[in-house]
């Protein structure tokens, strides 16, 4: 009776262990691939940030140059008007 109980206990323990520990896991190669993909994504995002900054800087420069051109054109028109009588 006692030995039967032990055998049943052993079976339950093995069954429980199998159920909990035998789910499918990624291989080391797959894990490496995931790591590579993560790094590539981070790199692309970093490059994207740099491009955004470059664009913002260029937009600011363009805006400044537009204003400079507008002022210069106004100045040229004023000079023309002033020299109209000369």
């Amino acid at each position, binding site marked *: 009776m006692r030995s039967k109980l032990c055998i049943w206990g052993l079976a339950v323990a093995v069954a429980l*262990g199998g159920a909990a520990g035998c789910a499918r896991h990624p291989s080391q190669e*797959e894990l490496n691939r995931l790591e590579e993909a993560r790094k590539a994504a981070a790199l*692309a995002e970093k490059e994207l940030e740099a491009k955004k900054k470059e664009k913002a800087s260029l937009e600011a420069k363009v805006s400044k140059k537009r204003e400079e051109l507008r002022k210069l054109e106004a100045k040229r028109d004023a*000079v023309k008007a*002033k020299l109209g009588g000369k």
Partner: protein
Amino acid sequence: MRWGYIWATVLLLGLSSPLQAAQRKMTYEEYRAELERALKRESEAKAAIAELEKEIKALKEELRRLEERIAAVKEEIYSLIGTDEQGVRAFQAQVEEIGKEVDALKGLSPDDLFWKKKELKEIKKRLEELRGSRIAALPEIDERLTALEGALAQIWAKVPELPSPGHYTVLKGDCLWNIAKKKEVYGDPYMWPRIYLANDQITNPDLIYPGWELTIPRGVKENQHLVVFGEWLSKIAGYEEVYGDPSKWPKIYEANRDQILDPNLIYPAQVLEIPRD
């Protein structure tokens, strides 16, 4: 008893290792989801980069066009005013030089300004010359010149027709000749008639008394000339600030017939009217 040990060991082995593995290892489904997420992040970022690169290229092109346009408009302005950047800078330096002189004159009293009339006229002349240049059509220079012209006009408005006269208290032993000779009076004894003519209490120029308070007239009006020792009419007419032409002396003579009996005889301290055209 022996079976009890075996049972306990197997139970421990069966339960503990899967629990530990669950803590440090992801499942295959989690792995797939994580991989997809990373790949999606990368592809989205690359797509956005491609889009941004197009925009950056367009912005660089626009910047280049703007710079070309700016250079062209600058060139157009310089061509209109007939100089280059260096010419404008040199012109601005001249304007600023006048600005400094005007600032220095602003703080002077009306009497001090009276004695600076020549300087004021000189500044006015230089401003007029600058105003005549095409460079003065530049808005910033036009504005500065207008401000300086305004400031100069304000200074001119403060210049009195004649400065305040001085005063002198007669001391024992003084005579008009000696008083006029004193540095703080005229520094020129030949100027004594000015004191005589300006002080009604002097009936006889050889008789003045200690304690008398004498008025010492200073300067002359704009269209007048104060004769000093060693001058004659053609010499006066030849002065730049008079006519700049000695042959015009008869104009002075005609305008002062009441005090010039002989054009060859004029006297120190005479105040002559200088008629203008």
